[in-house]
């Protein structure tokens, strides 16, 4: 299978010296539904900006279907459709004009562009507004207009930068359905978000970015099972061999330290009673935290916000 996107060693230092990307590698397969998840300021938009030629990279390479943006920029661009994070259409032009011109920039004839504009405006429930100026639209409509605009040249890869930020839950749902449908038709979708739940609902593969570093790059299932468990560290009175605990995996790190993996569904009481039964005394305990888990506390936090909004 082809790779829709290959990024390697991508680095970005902004004017003024701030390093937004510290050398990231990413691969997205053709047909994938891929999430780039990370908190605000992690470097998601910077990454998308470099892929779509809106930001100059400092080092590294980007290939779109094998076409390097340094050597075959126009080829690479023609595969991509971008829905940026901020509204960036002309507020004074009508929806139809915006769409038809955008298609023109990709070499789509006007007559064909009008047909496509009609198709996507209808699909995205904007057809009634086709002769209104962009500034007349509500926030959710503006977002949908940008999705329609990104599809006008029927790209192979659709990139959406936080498409559902600030969008109400009903619209978010319908956008999810629409994106799934596009993905089924074979369009590779890359989406950035800071809602874990959104990535979970939509995506097959996921990379997590934090402070310009990819901290995890895996499929959704493995990530979720990883997330479903935590590790608890027990300080114990000296023992020599690791105890056998029913239904728990444990490791003796040194003679005073025992680590036990606990699934969210399991009870810590069970560990205590089993340790008691084997005469192992616990002096203290703590959660073993790592960067990924810490990150998730914040991401799951924002995911819960999504759920609250839906009530």
């Amino acid at each position, binding site marked *: 299978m082809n790779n829709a996107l290959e990024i390697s060693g991508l680095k970005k230092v*902004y*004017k003024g010296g701030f390093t937004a990307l510290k050398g990231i590698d990413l691969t997205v397969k053709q047909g994938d539904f891929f999430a780039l998840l990370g908190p605000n300021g992690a470097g998601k938009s910077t990454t998308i*900006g470099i892929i*779509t*030629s*809106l*930001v*100059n990279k400092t080092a590294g390479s980007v290939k779109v279907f094998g076409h390097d943006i340094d050597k075959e*920029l*126009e*080829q690479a*661009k*023609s595969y*991509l459709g*971008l829905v*940026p994070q*901020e*509204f*960036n*259409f*002309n*507020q*004074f*032009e009508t929806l139809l*004009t*915006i769409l*038809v*011109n*955008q*298609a*023109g*920039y*990709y*070499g*789509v*004839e*006007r007559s064909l562009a009008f047909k496509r504009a009609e198709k996507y405006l209808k699909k995205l429930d904007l057809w009634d507004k086709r002769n209104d100026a962009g500034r007349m639209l509500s926030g959710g409509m503006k977002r949908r207009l940008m999705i329609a*605009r990104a599809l006008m*040249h029927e790209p192979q890869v659709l990139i959406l930068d936080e498409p559902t930020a600030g969008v109400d839950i009903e619209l978010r749902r319908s956008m999810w359905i629409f994106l799934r449908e596009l993905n089924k038709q074979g369009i590779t979708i890359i989406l950035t978000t800071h809602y874990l739940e959104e990535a979970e609902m939509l995506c097959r593969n996921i990379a997590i970015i934090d402070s310009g570093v990819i901290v995890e790059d895996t499929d959704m299932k493995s990530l979720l099972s990883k997330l479903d468990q935590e590790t608890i560290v027990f300080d114990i009175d000296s023992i020599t061999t690791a105890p056998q605990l029913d239904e728990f995996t444990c490791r003796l790190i040194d003679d005073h330290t025992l680590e036990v993996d606990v699934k969210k569904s399991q009870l810590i009481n069970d560990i205590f009673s089993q340790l008691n039964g084997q005469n192992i005394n616990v002096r203290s305990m703590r959660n073993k935290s790592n960067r990924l888990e810490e990150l998730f506390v914040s991401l799951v936090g924002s995911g819960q916000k999504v759920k609250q909004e839906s009530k």
Partner: protein
Amino acid sequence: MSSKSNFIALKSILYKEINRFMRIWVQTLVPPAITISLYFVIFGELIGSRIGQMGGFDYMSFIVPGLIMMSVITNSYSNVASSFFSAKWQRNVEEMLVAPVPNWVIVAGYVGGGMARGMLVGTIVTLVSLLFVDIQIHNIWVIIATVSLTSATFALGGLINAIFAGSFDDISIIPTFILTPLTYLGGVFYSISLLPDFWQGVSHLNPIVYMVNAFRYGFLGISDVSLTLAFSVLAAFIITLYTIAMTLITKGIGLRS
């Protein structure tokens, strides 16, 4: 990109640009018509009749070409300057930057848009002039060549201005402090042969003198400078400004962070 795609992209930019100034015609097309009428009333009817002849023609006939050229210059420049800056400001310039549009197509599209406005305004102003004065034509080809090259020169200038501009103020500074003085001192209202030698020499450093005189030659058959020199100056400006504009856009100055 195939040349066909490039052509479609170019047409789209041109369409968008022309559509923009037509949509706001009250701001773009009406003021030049009013301005030139005022010039005719003041310089033509009131003062011009006392000035007598200039360069062998009555004063009104003498200034018409310069007045037309003045409006072409201002409008070509400000069309591209405001349109491109506003595309940066609203960020819709990104629509072009993400698409496989070669940079020369972007430059050609905006310059073409500026030329379209410059020449349309030139035509309107010419038609208004006909209400006040008979216009004779000495050489139509010189007129067409001068007006297109001048318009292209200032459209490129407006584009470069917009690339560097960080605020709306930045696109009015150059027209106010450089363009307007150069135009007024560019031989629109007088023949530079009337000036003392020193100021004649200085005037030869003003590119607008060449444009106005070549243009006037097209109508009246008289010029303070040689046509060959005038067209060489225009060509040199276009090549230089085009190269600068292309370099800036390719580097992404003011466009890509």
